[in-house]
């Protein structure tokens, strides 16, 4: 839900993200900090507020890293198969 709002592409302030949400400003701030520490959201200070923006690179990087590990396992398991079936 928060990600969906941020996916609009425009950087948003916490105030803007609170509009229309059932969550308190405090809850949204906490949520944003978690997303920020995971690298999914980036923030930049603009005046008195921070603006938050979704970072698609992080999603792509996680997917690529998982893809890389997944492929390593495919290869390792193929070697295991050859090893036990000989």
């Amino acid at each position, binding site marked *: 839900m928060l990600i969906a709002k941020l996916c609009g592409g425009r950087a948003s302030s916490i105030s803007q993200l609170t509009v229309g949400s059932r969550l308190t400003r405090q809850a949204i701030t906490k949520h944003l900090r978690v997303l920020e520490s995971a690298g999914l959201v980036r923030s930049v200070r603009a005046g008195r507020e921070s603006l938050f923006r979704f970072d698609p690179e992080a999603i792509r990087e996680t997917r690529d890293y998982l893809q890389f590990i997944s492929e390593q396992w495919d290869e390792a398991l193929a070697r*295991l198969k050859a*090893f036990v079936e000989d």
Partner: protein
Amino acid sequence: MSDRIEKRIELKAPVSRVWRALTDYREFGEWFLVKLEGPFVPGQITRGRITYPGYEHVKWEALVEKMEPERLFSFTWAHPKSLDKAHYSEDYSGLPTTLVEFRLEKTAGGTLLRLTESGFDKFPADQREEFSRRNDGGWTEQMKNIERYVTKNP
């Protein structure tokens, strides 16, 4: 976004054979391509060095979790930020770890092996940069090339 990898593979070998290949440290090393220093023992760390061509500088280190004979073998290990020789560091302290679980089931054809690696949700963004497909060098292609070479030149 997934936090885990799941694999299933049917092996035409008895469960006891597969169990040995997984949990005997010398046999494990033969197919995983790592030279381990000693046996797997629950609660203890096993160390070694990768023997996969091009990655001989990489330290292998895992904390063994469970060894339920012929059913479950699991361990946790850290993911170094970089495997590239120029940037690789042997210091794994503070790095995120994942849990690797091998589950074995007897089947009519032999053994069903299920592998799960979980815990990727804990990884920070910059951990993953090097492995992005946008990188020149094409990690996956390199690995495939090495695999082809190793297969042709055992």
